[in-house]
Every structure is written in C-alpha cells, then in structure tokens.
C-alpha cells in the first residue's frame, strides 16, 4: 500500500468511529486526539480495525507512534508495503 492509500484507510477508520468527525481540517502533523473527539478507547478501535483488516499486530509500546496522522502513515508504510 502507498502512503496515500494508508492515509485514506486511517481516515476511513476514524470516520467510521465518529461519523460526525470533521476530517477536512485535520492537520497531519498534530496529534489526532487534540483535533478530534477521540479518547483511548477510540484509539484502540483504530488498532483493532488494523488487526481485522490486515492482521497487523501493533505492540503496545508502539502506540505513541500512532499519535498523529503523519506519524501513523510513517509507521504503517513499511509494515503494509506488501499489501
């Protein structure tokens, strides 16, 4: 998957968690939780969805790397490159 495709997937997952989330103004470099109505349980929803879709296990110590949209894409790009 390309970084662009991964970004689209993440946005889709977030939109599925919160249909009312305004993703148009989302800044990629800023923490997702500062910009959206997301808490730790929602964050775990993102991790679970990645597991369901791609059988990708994100270890707990890597959770901080999923803080922003940009860092999430950077983290996932090498892990999903063969898909």
């Amino acid at each position: 998957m390309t970084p662009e495709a991964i970004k689209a997937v993440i946005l889709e997952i977030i939109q599925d968690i919160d249909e009312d989330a305004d993703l148009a103004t989302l800044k990629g470099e800023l923490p997702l939780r500062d910009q959206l109505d997301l808490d730790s349980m929602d964050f775990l929803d993102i991790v679970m969805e990645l597991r369901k879709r791609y059988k990708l296990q994100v270890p707990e110590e890597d959770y901080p790397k999923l803080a922003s949209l940009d860092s999430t894409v950077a983290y996932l790009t090498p892990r999903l490159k063969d898909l």
Partner: protein
Amino acid sequence: MKESRPSQRIVITGVGLAAPGADNLADFRHNLLAGLSGIRLMEHRYIGKVPAGLCDFPETKYRKRKDNKRGTRAGCLGVYAAHEAVADAGLNLAASDRSRVGVYVGLTEHGNVETENEVYNLGQFDNNVDFWSHHHNPRTVLNNPAGEITMSLDITGPHYSVGAACAAGNAALIQGLQMLRLHDVDLALCGGISESTGSFGVFASFKAQGALASHPDPRQASRPFDRGRNGIVIAEGACLYTLERLDDALARGVKIHGEIIGYAMNSDARDFVLPYWPRQAECMRLALSRAGLVAQDIDIVNSHATGTRQGDIEECHALREVFADCPRTYINNTKSLIGHAMGAAGGLELAGNLPAFTDRLVHPTINIDDLDPACSLPNLVRDRAVETNGVKVILNNSFGMLGINSVVIVGKYQQ
C-alpha cells in the same frame, strides 16, 4: 406506612419513554386507547422472523452517533428516556446540584446482546481472542445503562441497576422512592430499560421453554388471556420517571403525574420459572395495606400477564382472590399492545395508564378473541377503552422469573 408528611410523600413529576410504536407519552397513550399494536416482525440471527416490539425514536436527539455506537442499545434507549423525563419535569439540571440526583435503572438482564455479538464476531476470526473488543466490559457491566445516563446528563450522584427479572421496572421505582425518603438524593431518575430484542438467546430460551409467541399476524401475537395464546412477544423499550418529594415538587410548582402511595415486593421461594398466585395475591394485599387502602379503592389494575399458558392463569387466580368484590375496579393488560418489554415493562405499563387520572379512560386489552375461561376476570377491559367516572388509584403488577413479585400503587395527586 401511609405517608402524610410532604417530605416523605413521593410524586412523579416527569415521564420519558421509548415504547414499541411511540416515543412520547401522548402518542403512547393514543395508541393504547385506540388498541393499536406496536408489534412487528423482526429478523433474528439463528432464529429467523419473529414478532417483536421495536422502538423507533430520535436516537441522536441527545447524544452523538459515536456514543450510541460505543455504548449499548440499553444505554441509547435510556439516555433518550432520561432526557425526555427531565424535560417533562421542567428540570434544569445545569442549575441543580447534580450530586443529589440518583439514577436507578431496572433491568431484567444485561450483557446478553453484547456477548452474543462478540462471540459471533470472534467466529469470523477463527475464535482468536485478539479480536475480542475492548468495549466488551464497559458495555456489559450491570450498571451500564444507568452509567451511560449519568455521563450524558452530567449526574454525579449514585447510579446503579436493580436486577429483578421482569419486576425490575417496579423495583427501580421503589428504590427511587426509598432513596428519596431517606434523603439520600433530592431527585430520583428511575424506571426500567430493555434491549432484550437484540439477544437471540432470550428468544431461543423462551422458544425452548415453549413460551415464545408466534402468529401469522405479528400484531395478534401478544394475546394474554386468550385461549389461543402461545407465549411471550419480546419487546425493547425504556421508561424513566423523575421522582421528587412532594414539598420539592410543590416548591417548583411543577405538574404532578401521580403519587406513589403503596408498594410491595416478595418472593415465591419455590420455582425458577413458574409463578405462584398465592404469593402474588400476598404482594398485592401488602401493597394495599401499606397504602392504607382496600381492594375496592383501586380503579385500574394493570395486569402483568405475558401470554403464557400458566402465567396468565396464575395471575388471574390471584386477581380474582384479591378483587373478588370490586365492581368498580377495571383490569387491563398493556402487553397485548406492546409485547413484554422485560425490564421496561413495569415502567411502560404504568406510564400507559397514568393519563387515566385526567382522561378518565381505561385502555383496552386487545387480541382476546376467545377468552380462556381460566382467565375470566371481573371488569376485564377488552377491545375498546372504557370511560369511567374518574380514576383515582392505579395498581401496577410486575412479576418475574425466580419467583419475584412487585406491586406499585399510584394515586392521583390530591392535597
């Protein structure tokens, strides 16, 4: 126990509900008086098509879709009913001490729906528990619906569930009343909630017991007292009340729907599922005694009968015993119209009858085409509403599995 002190008299100041066919008390009352059934067919996993009572209400009126998705159906129903009750009571919680509000929610069961869904989902992933949801525990703790209500209304007083099978709605009303009389809280938000239509297991268990209703026309499936009855129609719903001490309600100058003047609960202590009329009769007599009333004082008895063969006969036996010489007492049944709303049944059925204090009507029991002689009752209201000379006292029966009986008596408010 009869209370005359305003600080101990407990009144109903607000009603919020979601019922099969109605999302407010006025529409609910209209449907009941018109004899309109709220039952329709639903498709259920493993079970197929079954008659059920389902609620249509504005689910995002009081909270976001995101919260409905995260929470439970019971939470969604409860949050709606709670906000509606608070609005009906004219309460501004933002200006109130929300640590003095208690939320007491009656539940028949909770967690079946969420657990069944998770087990089903797990099956899609070779039963690998890595795919079990982190939402499972907060969704299935027994205080879930009450807790979701406190989060939505910023209530910081106590909240918990009252588990009392299908007597739960009445039991939670009694809990609210007692907490007010103890001055543990100043406002009680209480009643019952049911999400049981979401659980195939609840349907399947009644079916295995020979107690799940079926009929070619779903609107005729719920038929307590009829010779052709063949079981329960399961319904979802919520009915929450705001209860206040009379002196507080008078100080606010708020409309009073009624006063809880008597109540009782007891146990059969004999069988997991079969009801027992002598204990039901004892429960009614105890409630009457506590209210300082005799059976002849009751204008409407709202029966619990669910449409099972044995259950209806047992309650009718109890009713004939207690109301043997009561020519002015009418008996009706709300489940014939909305099905059995389990934890919400006691609350919804009482709410459906409360407007009788002002409109003087007794809503009918429908679907009695061929009355079972074993269910013959004096003044059973059938097919059409009955106009009375005035309704002053309503007695509400709710019984449940494991032999739990509850009775709540509500009087028209009089100084």
